């Protein structure tokens, strides 16, 4: 090998080596970011999954979801829940006369709530009578702050406002506190904090919205639309991988898949019939008919025995 070639070869080698080093550095950086996310309370496995999903186009994502569900069904991994809409639609598509499926719901993008969404949730929580300390986000998560701020903004207070149910209905006439004859007690003076404006009206908030007495009575927040922490939402786009898996149904996977396809087709025929009827009937029926196949899934997922 000539001297010139040797130099060139070395330069290639060195360039690759440098790039390898950079690759390692970047890999380390990624690891750090993941570690940071983990310590902020996020699930790194899910983050990785989200990154993979974001790499796909919406169509690819949909395909992935459909196939996952169909394969899960075949392997008996659906734990007794019916197929999701996407998978069912895919199975139907194989029928020549099946109508084109509607656009897929953008579940994957909804999974991670943004800071702004958390802020809105906080406002909603206030209106639903949730306690401010029942913030669903973990300490340090920027969404925890946003939720709290949203709550405060909706309540027009600092979150420690005396609930309307415990306040005087009408402003008491300026009767003042009963003072001791010797002037000993004067509890009326507000706290004179060193760096605090002692003015009673001095809080920088809008007028607190009157919060109905009934808001306060269900403070446990039973009607709070979010799932309690630790539980997956009932209409979760996929199942909680950490949930204890239910017993797998018995039987041959291929048979089950067949059965599934048959049942799905039957459902589809029913739907088509309803639609046909609806075309002739009043408009409201169309709507209900079209939605019918989605119903059993939802009610089943929510009211699991």
């Amino acid at each position, binding site marked *: 090998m000539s001297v010139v070639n040797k130099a060139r070869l070395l330069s290639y080698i060195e360039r690759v080596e440098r790039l390898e080093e950079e690759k390692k550095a970047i890999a380390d950086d990624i690891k750090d970011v993941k570690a940071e996310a983990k*310590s*902020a309370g*996020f*699930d790194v496995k899910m983050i990785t999954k989200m990154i993979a999903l974001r790499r796909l186009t919406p169509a690819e994502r949909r395909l992935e979801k459909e196939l996952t569900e169909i394969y899960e069904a075949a392997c008996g991994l659906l734990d007794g829940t019916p197929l999701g809409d996407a998978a069912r639609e895919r199975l139907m598509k194989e029928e020549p006369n099946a109508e084109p499926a509607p656009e897929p719901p953008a579940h994957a993008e*909804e*999974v*991670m709530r943004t800071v702004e969404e958390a802020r809105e949730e906080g406002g909603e929580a206030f209106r639903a009578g949730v*306690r*401010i*300390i029942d*913030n*669903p*986000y*973990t*300490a*340090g998560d920027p*969404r*925890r*702050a946003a939720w709290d701020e949203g709550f*405060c903004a909706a309540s027009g207070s*600092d*979150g*420690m406002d*005396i*609930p309307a149910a*415990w*306040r*005087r*209905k009408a402003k*008491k006439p300026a009767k003042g*506190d*009963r003072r*001791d004859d010797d002037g000993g*007690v004067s*509890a*009326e*003076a*507000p*706290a004179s*904090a*060193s*760096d*605090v*404006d002692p003015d*009673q*009206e*001095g*809080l*920088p908030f809008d007028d607190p919205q009157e919060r109905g007495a009934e808001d306060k*009575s269900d403070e446990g927040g039973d009607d709070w639309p979010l799932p309690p922490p*630790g*539980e*997956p*939402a009932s*209409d*979760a786009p996929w*199942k*909680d*991988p*950490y949930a204890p898996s239910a017993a797998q149904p018995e039987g041959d996977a291929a048979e089950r898949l067949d059965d599934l396809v048959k049942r799905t087709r039957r459902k589809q025929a029913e739907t088509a019939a309803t639609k046909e009827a609806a075309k002739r009937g009043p408009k409201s029926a169309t709507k209900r008919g079209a939605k019918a196949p989605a119903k059993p899934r939802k009610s089943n997922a929510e009211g699991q025995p």
Partner: protein
Amino acid sequence: MSEPARTRKPDISAGLDQVEKFATILLPRDAEEPILAPGPRYAIYEWLTEIRARPDLESVGLKPRSTALLYGPPGTGKTTLAHHLAARLGLPLVTVQADRMTSKYMNESANNIGQLFDAIDKIKNGCVLFLDEFDSLGSKRSSSEHGTDKDRNLTLTTLLTRVEGFEGILLAATNRKEDLDTAMWRRFGMQISVDLPGSEERYAILKRYSLPFEFPDDALDTLADLTAGASPALLRQMMEGLKRSIVLAPRLKKPIDDVVEVFRGLVATTVPHPDVPQPHLWKKFDACAADLRTIPWPPERAPAEKKGGAK
């Protein structure tokens, strides 16, 4: 699963066992909303905002303040407020009874302080440190060279440096601010007064702790007037005592027909802290009897579904 961070919460109690020797751990979900005057409320809210704006502050070379001293009469809600702040941040409150840190052995108190702060630093997911009855550790330095005084000074110096260098969130509380060392006092980023409640707050506290029994607004006004100068803790004790006597009356065969006698019993058994001025109801009970008779008695009980709702 709709929200990974929600389904896989980090265990906020991890590492807390290291501090259990000195501390009681209060979890966020057990916090209550304190009923306070605007002053301390605003100070706490401002601090919360500051803590959350850490990145913005750091971008201009500032840091959020990390320490606050709560001072005020006993039973005004200092512990309750610290617990509420921690709960808003989603962190456990590590409550240290300061007198549990002191020891009669030489250097032992200073060692304890070192151990505590070291253990706090190791808590992975963070916590809020709360030093209650802080005056027992941070009382004024002495100039004498006597053994116990020297030890006391060492304790205080250790505390000064640890508080000053603390990176987390620390609150201390005292109801004897006069006793506190002045250098110690200055070490805190904030000094927040948690004072006795005013008329509005007393009304709300009386209402809250009288539930599910319902007194008309006028009756609560009367009680709020008669109890001017009472701490929230005393008001709570009084109203809970009232509920207790109503519920237990049939079992104890103790008649509760006379509202004045019921209150006389309550006032005799729930007494305000001797260091604070006595409210009217305690100081001149007989002069209050006529006002007490205007309270509709016995109180009505709210319908069942409301029971315990507003805690």
